[in-house]
């Protein structure tokens, strides 16, 4: 509950995320082959490579806002496609959450994610059920907010986020795309899991793993 997350933990989370994406590069590209232009794995892998370089740099800030902004710029330059500016905006706006400092508690982490989500929605103009990464991120953030309201532990809050993200990701299989390239396929997009919803799920999967472990230290 009172656990504080610092830049060091955020860095650990994003390194885990980068590794997870790289493991799943082919899987993401396969998903994008079915309903997009077969590059989501390639795009994300390129961005994650740059992110790993950036995170291994010696010179590091202790300020979460500056850290997230630098992550955002790295993703913006590295990922490309639609996902680049979308993930970039998520972190850019997360960086502007006013309660960021040199550490955030669980409520502040949730608010940071909320800022990211709102920015992402403003940028991409997608709603839930448009079959995009929003279908993963929005339920995850809402689950965190709901769990926080009932004073749950870090582990419980992040497990709830992960589970909501997972359900959202799986839900994209059943729906028709209304945003992004997959929308050109209309009803033919049904039956396929959205690649961006999949890469976004790993954000919450790795957050649950890393922050919970940290909390247990």
């Amino acid at each position, binding site marked *: 509950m009172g656990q504080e997350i610092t830049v060091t933990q955020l860095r650990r989370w994003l390194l885990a995320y980068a590794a997870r994406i790289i493991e799943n590069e082919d899987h993401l590209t396969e998903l994008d082959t079915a309903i997009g232009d077969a*590059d989501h794995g390639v795009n994300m892998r390129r961005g994650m490579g740059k992110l790993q370089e950036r995170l291994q740099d010696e010179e590091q800030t202790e300020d979460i806002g500056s850290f997230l902004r630098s992550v955002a*710029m790295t993703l*913006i*330059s590295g990922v*490309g*496609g*639609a996902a*680049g*500016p*979308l993930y*970039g*905006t998520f972190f*850019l706006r997360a960086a502007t959450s006013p309660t960021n400092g040199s550490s955030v508690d669980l409520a502040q982490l949730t608010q940071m994610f909320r800022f990211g989500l709102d920015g992402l929605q403003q*940028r*991409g103009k997608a709603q839930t059920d448009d079959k995009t990464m929003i279908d993963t991120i929005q339920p995850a953030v809402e689950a965190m907010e709901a769990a926080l309201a009932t004073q749950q532990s870090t582990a419980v809050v992040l497990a709830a986020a992960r589970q909501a993200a997972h359900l959202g990701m799986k839900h994209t299989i059943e729906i028709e795309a209304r*945003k*992004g*390239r997959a*929308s*050109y396929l209309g009803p033919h997009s049904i039956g396929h899991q959205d690649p961006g919803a999949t890469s976004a799920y790993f954000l919450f999967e790795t957050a649950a793993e890393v922050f919970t472990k940290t909390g247990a230290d």
Partner: protein
Amino acid sequence: MQSLMNKPGSAITQSLRGMALCHPDTIKVHFDPDFVERTVTARSGKVAVISGSGSGHEPLPTGYVGLGMLDAACPGPIFTSPSPIQLLAAVHSVDHGGGVLFVVKNYAGGVLNTELTIELALQEGIDARFVLVNDDVSIANVANRRGLGAAALACKIAGAAAESGYTLDEAVKVTRRAVAACRSMGVGTNVNTLPRNGPGAILADDSIELGVGIHGEPGEVRSVSKGMSEIVGLIGQPILKDLPFAAGDRVLLLISGMGGTPPLELYLFSEAIHDMLVANRIRVERQLVGNYLTSLGRGGYTVTLMRLDNELQDLWDAPVHTPALHW
């Protein structure tokens, strides 16, 4: 020889360098991030006009950099939007205090990257706006209409407006008006050849694809054994009805090859278009026929009509000096 283009990253960089070597008086190239800038410096306070686009549509956007048109162009990878890093580097290089106008074709990547760039520029206190180009009448849903030939026309109008002292607001307004006066459609005569896919399939001799995009987006396959006038019949009405264009209208006609169509066939198509316009009593006041918006080496053409008024015609006629357009 596909292999020469198979490493898009370095091929595009080298190609940009080659382009600069071929037009040293007009453009210069920056690398990492890549963008092309005009050599003639703009007066202080001029609105800067920038356009980004995936590569493979040349001369759009790099061939339109120069006096009276673009201050800078940002080429992305093949058929992929340039990144905000490129766009922002161009902004830093060409902003002269008058603000920045981006011309953006309506594709998700391009719009997202431009909007993000504008957010970043605003954070630095640089006033930036964008004009969305969405002239493709083959898409029913207006919000999803893709940018075609109007992108080249919008770059010219915006560039001329900026050069002649329009403020950012005024330049945005007239460029939006120009785009709103445009309607386009694409016809494919073979299937796209992407470097990664190898040579494209060839349509049957008597078939075309109606309403293709410039990234290999498929159209509707139609048999047209009666030749060009039949094709023009299929695209003429959707274009004319959409604005709508009316008898007595003056228009600018842009017929662009997609890169693999010989001039002989392009003029054959032009003949049928002219006949269709005469039949509808629409007067061609200005025209451009050639490769102005391409799709690598694919066969096909796009046709764009822009309804002219005096202001648009004056801006069109204003001097321009770029690798691809000059008068």
